[in-house]
């Protein structure tokens, strides 16, 4: 089985979010970046396990980004992906990113393409669906469990307040949510091997974005917490009713 795993990079969850003076760009000074948790813990780990189940399989990590992402890509290789491709462009928007990933995948005949549920920076949950549409493939989002037998996959996907079980034939695009796999830490052997695995850098195709971020702003700060004594729960309920107006 030929598997592609789309991996993005995002600011560490504890990173301080700030912008340039014009509020048009994210200020990355001093920000540590990590592999998007959904891509790492769920998509990649599940892909690697599936590859083991089907001997002769390969897992290719694909990333749209600049050279400063290489460390994150190497981590993917340390988690036992076979090789990696970096499309050398800034992933400005989901549409641009999906287009680049699609052009890479078009000629490769992957049997299975994984994305994460969403990136934790722009929280779009867009790229997987767009990629599937560019490639005219089925798309199953928010998979929390997946098994493959022959050329058919059975998948549990998260829906509002429950799960839906679906069946779909390879090839398709799937986005991985919590439950697909357990977080794994690369071992020493994996890290050593990763250093020599192929990481191809390819140029992007031309594509014009149709939307862009023109301004960032920080949410309005809370006006400050109002403390209520533990003995005065009637008062808390009264405040929620007449001041906050939520009950």
């Amino acid at each position, binding site marked *: 089985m030929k598997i592609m795993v789309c991996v993005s990079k995002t600011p560490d969850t504890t990173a301080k979010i700030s912008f340039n003076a014009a509020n048009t760009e994210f200020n990355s000074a001093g920000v540590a970046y990590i592999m998007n948790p959904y891509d790492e813990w769920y998509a990649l780990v599940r892909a690697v396990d599936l590859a083991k189940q089907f001997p002769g399989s390969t897992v290719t990590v694909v990333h749209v980004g600049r050279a400063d992402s290489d460390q994150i890509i190497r981590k993917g290789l340390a988690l036992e992906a076979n090789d990696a491709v970096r499309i050398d462009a800034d992933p400005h928007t989901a549409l641009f990113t999906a287009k680049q990933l699609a052009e890479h995948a078009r000629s490769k005949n992957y049997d299975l393409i994984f994305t994460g549920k969403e990136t934790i*920076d722009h929280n779009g949950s867009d790229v997987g669906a767009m990629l599937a549409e560019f490639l005219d493939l089925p798309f199953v989002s928010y998979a929390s469990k997946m098994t493959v037998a022959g050329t058919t996959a059975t998948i549990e996907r998260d829906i509002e307040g429950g799960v839906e079980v679906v069946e779909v034939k390879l090839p398709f695009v799937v986005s991985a949510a919590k439950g697909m796999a357990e977080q794994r830490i690369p071992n020493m052997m994996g890290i050593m091997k990763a250093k020599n695995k192929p990481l191809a850098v390819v140029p992007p195709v031309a594509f014009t974005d*149709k939307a862009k971020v023109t301004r960032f*702003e*920080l949410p309005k700060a809370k006006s400050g917490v109002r403390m209520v004594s533990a003995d005065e*729960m009637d008062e808390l309920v009264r405040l929620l009713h007449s001041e906050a107006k939520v009950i």
Partner: protein
Amino acid sequence: MCRTSSYLNDVLQKIYIMVLVYIESPKGQFKKAAFEAVTYGAKVAAALKTTCVALTLGNVKDAGILGEYGASKVYNIASSNVETFDSQSFTTAIANAAQALNASVVILSHSANGKSLTGRLAVRLNAGTVSGANAVPTLNGGFKVQKSVFSGKAIAEYTIDAPIKVISLMGNSIPAQKTGHSVAVSALDVAVPAPRVKVISTRTADGHVPLPEAEKVVSAGRGVKDPQNWGIIEDLAAAVGATTACSRPVADAGWRPHHEHVGQTGVAIRPNLYIAIGISGAIQHLAGVNNSRVIVVINKDPEAPFFKAADYGVVGDLFEVVPRLTAAFKKFKAN
């Protein structure tokens, strides 16, 4: 400029610029998100000086009531190929409808299914897109839509520069609003391909509002100490009329099902009221709840970071405070 040309402009706008809202109808029924989406569509249409039209797929009970929320027309596509969800057949149905009706803005709900349609439709219609919008677009200096980014830690304003726009609306961003009256439903005859993803079964917990749609949420963390103590949380939730949620360690330990886990790696919610009990308020937890309108924090540690993100705080032992609060809610409801 003569009167006729501005009149003509108006007519042309009516013909070519129309807002189409795709309304989900799981099991043939509308949920709260459906009414929010039409309300939003009507507001977008008003801003663009045009009409808002709703689209439903499959068998739907009472689709005409979407008119009450501002749809001037409701279209329905009846096809055996839309009985269960498949992003490809649904995308084709909606895209064909959008083209047949000359829609220039297509709106969806940012739901589990909506999220896999938004991206596909954007590609199919060669559109500019913003998913998870949380406010009505502004038209000053371009078509601008805002959404929450960095797990709720910032807001981004996107400018869409394309004749066709696809937007998905984040739940609980704007309240549903009745402004009109029920309208007739017209059948729309467009081709829909057979689904390639086959739905085998669905399991949904009936009887309570799913977390992403809940307006009130009572949530608890490791401070509860033992799954056996969860009863006091449920009692409070029942008194408040809330859905229950939990922090990640609670779900990881198997005390509560995973679909109740909120935060960065769980469900992101934005209820009107979020009551957090025995939760420290780690940044990854806040990422999923900081868009709640009002946050109440109950924690025995006055230094718990959650108090910084709270509107109301109570310092105390949850085993004493929570039953008291439950009693207070009951008393309030009885009056």
